């Protein structure tokens, strides 16, 4: 193969000489990042499904740890992808300075697709992490834009893999130490690249080696994962130096995502006159004493937040199905639970398997629910996003 010299570039133009950069390094970083992003995408879609399932495919009630695992994976792969993305982009930074900047329409389209991919990934990872920290300094609704950007990213990645497949193949097959150095000059324009010149000595790496770079990246990402995952993988909570949440510190052993104060709930709202109305073919109303007298079922289920924390807890309450049957419904009924709360996530629907197993809880970890946890009554169902376990209930509708 004859290498072709590219057109002369400007006299002042960045030159990248670090022997650490190589397609062999990039392909390895990219493969790992790709796996993280695919897991993050798939678990993200599972989570969106929780909010609006199709009526013919209701969310299952088992395994009870399903959403704990999937959403834990979503947040941890997203967090791991932040340092990984930065190293991966560092490894291909010289490509930004290829000369000429645009060779053809096809080349322009390729560069545009890379710009879309990079900017969407950076914004997605940054805003996802900020969301977990309760930080929303942007003018759009987080949930829908997070989902639409996810489509943009996964599409751009498939396109990117399609375009780069020959480089990926070369990079993964080449030995890390031997492969061509990645500079601002593409290998096809570089007569010294061993891809063109045949066997040439591997580039000298007098200081850090490429393997050292990959190990350093692995250690950095590994430490980030190990010190953040404790918010959902409870045994690692003691080393959760960078964990956003510490479930253990939550009131009654469970963090609160929406406090009574921020939901506009006061003691008076759920005070003396509180009743639970169950609406259906044969409606009825229960007083607080009646509800507490019926609260005799105990379950051990984790509560799992969309923001990536989860913790096991003991719940005691009434079986939802008992109320549904008494109101004239069955386990096939669609059930809506409604809160005293005026706005926000103040109602949620149950259909299918969760109707049969869910509890309307009065107690958490053997204590009467406090106001922040939804006193006097809240929904808890296994394999269900925390925010859909509506608190401060005063009404159940059976249809």
């Amino acid at each position, binding site marked *: 193969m004859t290498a072709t010299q590219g057109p002369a570039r400007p006299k002042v133009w960045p030159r990248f000489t670090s022997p650490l950069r190589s397609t062999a390094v990039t392909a390895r970083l990219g493969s790992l990042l790709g796996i993280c992003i695919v897991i993050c995408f798939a678990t993200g879609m599972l989570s969106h499904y929780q909010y609006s399932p199709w009526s013919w495919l209701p969310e299952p009630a088992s395994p009870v740890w399903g959403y704990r695992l999937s959403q834990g994976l979503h947040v941890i792969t997203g967090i791991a992808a932040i340092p990984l993305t930065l190293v991966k982009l560092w490894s291909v930074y010289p490509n930004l300075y290829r000369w000429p900047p645009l060779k053809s329409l096809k080349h322009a389209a390729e560069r545009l697709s890379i710009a*879309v991919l990079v900017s969407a990934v950076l*914004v997605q990872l940054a805003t996802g992490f900020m969301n977990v920290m*309760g930080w929303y300094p942007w003018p759009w609704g987080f949930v829908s834009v997070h989902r639409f950007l996810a489509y943009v990213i996964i599409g751009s990645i498939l396109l990117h893999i*399609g375009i780069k497949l020959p480089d990926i193949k070369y990079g993964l097959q080449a030995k890390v130490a031997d492969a061509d150095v990645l500079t601002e000059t593409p290998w096809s324009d570089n007569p010294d690249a061993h891809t063109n010149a045949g066997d040439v000595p591997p580039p000298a790496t007098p*200081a850090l080696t490429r393997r*050292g770079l990959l190990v350093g990246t692995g250690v950095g990402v590994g430490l980030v994962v190990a010190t953040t995952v404790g918010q959902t993988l409870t045994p690692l909570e003691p080393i959760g130096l960078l964990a956003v949440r510490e479930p253990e510190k939550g009131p009654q052993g469970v963090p609160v995502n929406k406090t009574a104060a921020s939901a506009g709930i006061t003691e008076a709202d759920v005070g003396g006159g509180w009743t639970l109305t169950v609406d259906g073919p044969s409606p009825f109303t229960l007083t607080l004493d009646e509800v507490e007298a019926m609260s005799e079922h105990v379950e051990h289920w984790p509560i799992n937040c969309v923001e990536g924390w989860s913790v096991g807890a003991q719940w005691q309450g009434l079986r939802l199905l008992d109320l549904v049957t008494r109101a004239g419904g069955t386990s096939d009924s669609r059930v809506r639970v409604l809160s005293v709360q005026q706005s926000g996530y103040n109602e949620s629907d149950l259909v299918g398997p969760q109707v049969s197993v869910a509890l309307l809880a009065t107690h958490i970890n053997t204590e009467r629910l406090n106001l922040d946890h939804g006193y006097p009554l809240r929904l808890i169902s296994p394999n269900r996003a925390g925010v859909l376990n509506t608190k401060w209930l005063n009404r159940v509708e059976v249809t």
Partner: protein
Amino acid sequence: MMRLRLPLAVVGIAILLFGVLRLITEVPTEALVGLGVWLIAALVIHDGIASPLIIAVGVVLARWVPPRARRYVQFALIVSALIAVIAIPLAYREDTQPPAESMLLQNYLGNLTLLIGIVAAFSIAAYAIRVAEDSRAASGSHGAATQGG
């Protein structure tokens, strides 16, 4: 494997355009403009500011730190920077939420310092071992040369 290229690209473009379409049709214009600003800002900040700074650090290290020590400095800096990227935003957000949420209650700068300290200690120890091994090898080969002579 190369036969996969076209299908990957076609499916990728279809999903990409689906995402763009959903954004354009379902997100209000004002919010969309804000998103556009963020997307462009992300490129400018990453490609125009952060990356040149990182490269400048590399140039300074190459200029002033001899290769044998540089290896360990680079390793420690890479690990520390990757941890700091996560820890610094956490530190900025520390104590901003109601305590009942049991979130952002830690001293993240302190924890970051601890983690960097551990990484630095390991790197220094590895460097010290390397220096000791090199000097032993040097005296060993010197001894061998003497014996041979």
